[in-house]
């Protein structure tokens, strides 16, 4: 049992993934056949010995609630600690958080009630796995006030909507930029950090009363520039993906077809946990042709599937040809239909002989429940 509590902030950046987040939070976006984005930070926290985890939600959190339930799949359903769902509309908040500080301010009661010495906080639109306990150990050792997790992964997308930092040899973060049109600083801040719980409470109390909303822009950038807080960096050596668009979501998914990339995100001794669905094994029927694909349980495959990710309960009918696609839960591609570079959201259907041929640079999204 580590002296760490976790906070997963899911209230931001709901519009970047377009149709995929039309009626779900980013945290609930499905990934890699059977997971939701929140499974990655949540499983990593559990694996790091964190047993008290608050999930801050804002909009469209019904699918997230349904997914997390009592937290049983993550062993967070116990009596003494576990998963704490923090919806909006509390005494201190009427529903809209302008930023992380507002969200924490609205949920200060939860932070005050918790007993752990450290807080690890993370967002859900960055995809990576992490040893949060190692970050806290480094944080303790360095005596920093705040430690930011960063990545040197050259594959991480760098464009106008990320946060980048400069880290000095002694571990101190000397510069931070937020949403620059052209990034200048070398490393990607993964928007995961650790801080002493008491210090977070004090910081939030002080800054919110001054009218601030954003932790990164309003607090961290200034503290780094003026050296009012000791901010350190902790390198996460694994891969990291910034899911800031449908294209980057598609690209990250497809990269998981590579065995080594997959091994980076899913290691046998540190499983990524998710909600279970009791599907039977997938039936590869006579005549099915499957190449280079990740396939969840409960699918029926009668057609051709190449370079695809199939979620649970997908049906690829006879004669259908599906290449370079992501097909989400319970969707159907019917007889002789052809699909290329498409993302089919849940329970969508492609009618017999239907054709949807897109390109790698601009994958088409078929919205949830739609029939083409």
């Amino acid at each position, binding site marked *: 049992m580590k002296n760490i509590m976790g906070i997963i902030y899911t209230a931001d950046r709901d519009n970047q993934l377009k149709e995929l987040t039309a009626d779900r939070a980013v945290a609930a976006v499905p990934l*890699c*056949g*059977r997971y939701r984005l929140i499974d990655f930070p949540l499983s990593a926290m559990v694996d790091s010995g964190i047993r008290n985890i608050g999930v801050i939600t804002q909009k469209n959190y019904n699918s997230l609630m349904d997914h997390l339930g009592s937290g*049983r*799949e993550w062993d967070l359903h116990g009596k003494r600690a576990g998963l704490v769902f923090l919806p909006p509309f509390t005494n201190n908040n009427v529903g809209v958080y302008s930023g992380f500080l507002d969200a924490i301010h609205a949920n200060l009661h939860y932070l005050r009630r918790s007993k752990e010495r450290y807080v690890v906080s993370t967002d859900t639109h960055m995809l990576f796995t992490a040893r949060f306990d190692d970050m806290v150990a480094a944080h303790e050792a360095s005596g920093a006030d705040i430690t930011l997790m960063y990545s040197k992964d050259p594959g991480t997308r760098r464009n106008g909507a990320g946060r980048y930092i400069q880290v000095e040899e002694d571990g101190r973060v000397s510069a931070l930029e937020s949403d620059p049109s052209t990034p200048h600083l070398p490393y990607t801040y993964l928007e995961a950090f650790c801080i002493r719980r008491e210090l977070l409470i004090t910081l939030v109390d002080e800054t919110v009363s001054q009218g601030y909303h954003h932790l990164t822009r309003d607090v961290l950038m200034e503290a780094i520039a003026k050296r009012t807080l000791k901010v350190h960096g902790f390198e996460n050596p694994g891969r990291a993906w910034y899911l800031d668009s449908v294209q980057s979501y598609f690209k990250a998914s497809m990269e998981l*077809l590579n*065995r080594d990339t*997959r091994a980076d995100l*899913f290691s046998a001794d540190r*499983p*990524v*946990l*998710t909600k*279970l669905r*009791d599907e*039977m*094994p*997938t*039936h*590869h*029927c*006579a*005549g*099915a042709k*499957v*190449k*280079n*694909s*990740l*396939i*969840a*349980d*409960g699918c*029926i495959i009668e057609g051709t599937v190449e370079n695809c*990710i*199939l979620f649970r309960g997908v049906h690829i009918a006879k004669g259908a040809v599906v290449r370079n696609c992501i097909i989400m839960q319970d969707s159907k591609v019917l007889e002789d239909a052809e699909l290329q570079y498409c993302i089919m959201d849940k329970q969508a259907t492609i009618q017999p002989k239907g054709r949807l041929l897109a390109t790698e640079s601009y994958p088409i999204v078929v919205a949830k429940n739609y029939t083409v």
Partner: protein
Amino acid sequence: MLRKKRCVAMLLAGGQGSRLGILTKHVAKPAVPFGGKYRIIDFPLSNCSNSGVDVVGVLTQYRPLELNAYIASGAPWDLDLVNGGVFVLPPYQTGKTGEWYKGTANAIYQNISFIDQYDPDYVLILSGDHIYKMDYAAMVAHHESHNADATIAVRQVPWEEAPRFGIMNTDANDNIIEFEEKPAHPKSNNASMGVYVFTWAKLRKYLTEDEQNPNSQNDFGKNIIPAMLAEGQKLVAYSFNDYWKDVGTIESLWEANMDLLEDHPEIDLHDKKFRIYARNLGMIPQYVADTAKVENCLITEGCDVRGTVIHSILSSGVVVEEGAQVIDSVIMPGAKIEKGAIVRRAIVAEDAVVSANAIVGEGAGLIAVVGNGAVVPSDGRISAGEQFGE
């Protein structure tokens, strides 16, 4: 005081299942994997859950470790309840005495106080040997509407197979008038499925009397049912003619697995209204590589398929390396088939390894078996019908 229940199920899971040979050397039969992501006991447990029978006592005796760990709180079957749930019931000591379960009836007798806690009207007796989906609630309703003292589920088996079963001879109203255990010349082909509903007060009485008879084998089929018939109790047959398969032998276990690969399997495991639940590991989706060739297979999460797999079942976490061939076989969880190995008409048990270029099984004949955790050496040969491992 626990709340009264209409029906309590007792699942007999104590037998070794010695006819499964090496597969049950280290685990009890109900814990043997089936169909890629199930274990045999998932079928009766899921049937209970789907039938609204929410108190299930599981009687264990032989190698209970895996079974206990597998059942644990009962959560996968929605049987982790405040008022009811699943309970593992091993034999226990009372005062200075204590004994193993001597027979199926004795196992229930020793747990009379468990059943009495719920003051049930009916008790459902199940076994952990069969693959089937059955609504027990319908059977209990049949029992009730016929005012029966005992109801026995029967199914019609091919006449030539009837001598292997307990055969129920009935009158026109489904009343059982005669019971014959494995008759050489059967008068009917209504075979007992080993699924019974008893009115608890009646069964309680017969169990108690049977226990006092030193010559009894304390067995339902051999003692309890004949005694009830002899004393004119009302025994009724309940016909069940959907899919049902005894998986008590290597060949029948293999066949039942292969049944799932039919175009339209007689047992539908996709059915969302009557799910078969299992404790799953929650592994990453299966990966099927460019080098793979997969035809008519059931493959589940955690598998990594790089070789050829035809008409076979791959369970959780199975690896089939490039150039390996798996044909007409059942590969149980965590097993690995290495490069160039050939596995035909075989069952490869949990965590076993078939090393590079080894050959397991043959194109025809009996099923070859590689036991739990066994490692078939490189270039090894396991012939049809052979059982390899410790």
